[in-house]
């Protein structure tokens, strides 16, 4: 199918872009990589009257070291740039491990970090990774700018803290603490399809080898990235034994997610996958933490 007619605006600066968003409000949609928005428009599920194309806003495309040891990523940075970034590989190994799971190479050549998190598909990788990393998102409008923690940015199915006149300009991802291991894994029916379930883990061990902190974030099993409360409750202060990790994974999959069933998999199967994947990523994260 073909998209309906719309007014096309192609700003070259953030100031110009947010001025357009302020002018057109709810009628306008920012167009980032277009890998979700354009198919939605082709199906006419979305019919924005105005598209503000951000692809000529050069100032939004960068990957920079942050002073805290983390990384700052411009909203229009494409997945392929993150995938090939040495800085990301060094400082954000969890993100580095995850990016190849995003869709297919052609999609990663166009899709952007800011676009993915603004779209807020609960089955997408970057929202979950941004939450797992305790990232922060910088939003801009003509009214000014504000930082929103990732945990508060994702409000529900395709719903974020963005106001109609705001856009994401930057994502700040802090480095993982010392003695922290990480892992990401997902299960999809075919490589590159939206995963049935995905899980990101970051585990920090104390000098004595006990668990100091655990981040376990699920995707595809709720209306947003789902952060486990059970995993830290089970593990913090404990030796990361196989039994403890198993219990954490089982309880997280029982208590912290809200999977749905569809033609691809039942809710019960998704819950089962979530427990298996959670155990797998927790185990790998602990091994990596011990090796650091």
């Amino acid at each position: 199918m073909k998209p309906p007619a719309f007014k096309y605006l192609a700003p070259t600066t953030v100031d110009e872009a947010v001025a357009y968003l302020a002018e057109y409000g709810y009628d306008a949609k920012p167009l980032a990589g277009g890998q979700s928005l354009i198919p939605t428009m082709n199906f006419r599920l979305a019919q924005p009257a105005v598209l503000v194309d951000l692809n000529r806003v050069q100032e939004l495309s960068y990957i920079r070291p942050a002073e805290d040891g983390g990384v700052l990523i411009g909203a229009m940075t494409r997945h392929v740039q993150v995938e090939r970034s040495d800085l990301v590989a060094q400082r954000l190994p969890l993100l580095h491990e995850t990016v190849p799971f995003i869709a297919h190479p052609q999609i990663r050549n166009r899709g952007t970090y800011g676009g993915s998190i603004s779209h807020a598909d609960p089955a997408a990788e970057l929202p979950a990774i941004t939450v797992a990393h305790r990232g922060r998102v910088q939003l801009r409008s003509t009214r000014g700018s504000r930082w929103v923690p990732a945990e508060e940015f994702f409000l529900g199915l395709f719903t974020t803290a963005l106001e109609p006149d705001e856009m994401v300009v930057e994502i700040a991802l802090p480095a993982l603490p010392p003695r922290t291991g990480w892992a990401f894994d997902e299960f999809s029916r075919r490589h590159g399809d939206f995963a049935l379930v995905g899980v990101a883990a970051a585990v920090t061990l104390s000098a004595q080898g006990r668990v100091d902190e655990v981040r376990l974030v699920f995707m595809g099993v709720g209306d947003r990235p789902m952060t486990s409360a059970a995993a830290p409750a089970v593990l913090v202060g404990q030796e990361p034994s196989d039994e403890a990790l198993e219990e954490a994974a089982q309880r997280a999959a029982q208590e912290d997610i809200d999977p749905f069933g569809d033609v691809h998999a039942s809710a019960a199967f998704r819950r089962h996958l979530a427990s298996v994947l959670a155990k797998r990523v927790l185990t790998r994260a602990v091994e990596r933490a011990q090796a650091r």
Partner: protein
Amino acid sequence: MSELHTVRVTVNGTVYERQVEARMLLSDFIRHELGLTGTHVGCEHGVCGACTVLFDGEPVRSCLMFAVQADGHEIMTVEGLAPEGEMHPLQEAFHEAHALQCGFCTPGFLMTLKPFVETHPNPTDEEIRKAISGNLCRCTGYQHIIEAVKLAIKKIHHSDAA
């Protein structure tokens, strides 16, 4: 709403300038405005990969871009792979290894694979499968396509052995 935008774009080395509506997809622009019908349109929502072209050298789905966005950029379609009447080593390999039956998906595979075979002299089967994961073929079962990729790489990088 029928406001027209000027698109000036280089396709296969030739500069074209057209007036188009903003909603015109790049895939339709290539086929209908430029008459380059080698780029095929399958699903029109970014799943099948049949419409893959090189955009500034990188494979992208032309059904997930608007033609206006290509203004000032460079595109290569399957017609640009080799001069008229000749075949690119990748095309030869697809032919020789029986990597197509109906051929509908083939232009998309070729454009996805062009940069891959040029930059991967010794890929593993796994790497090849990942490279083509965004292209669907309903005839071949992919095995012959993977064989063709290996054959093309042999032709391009190890021509003494071919």
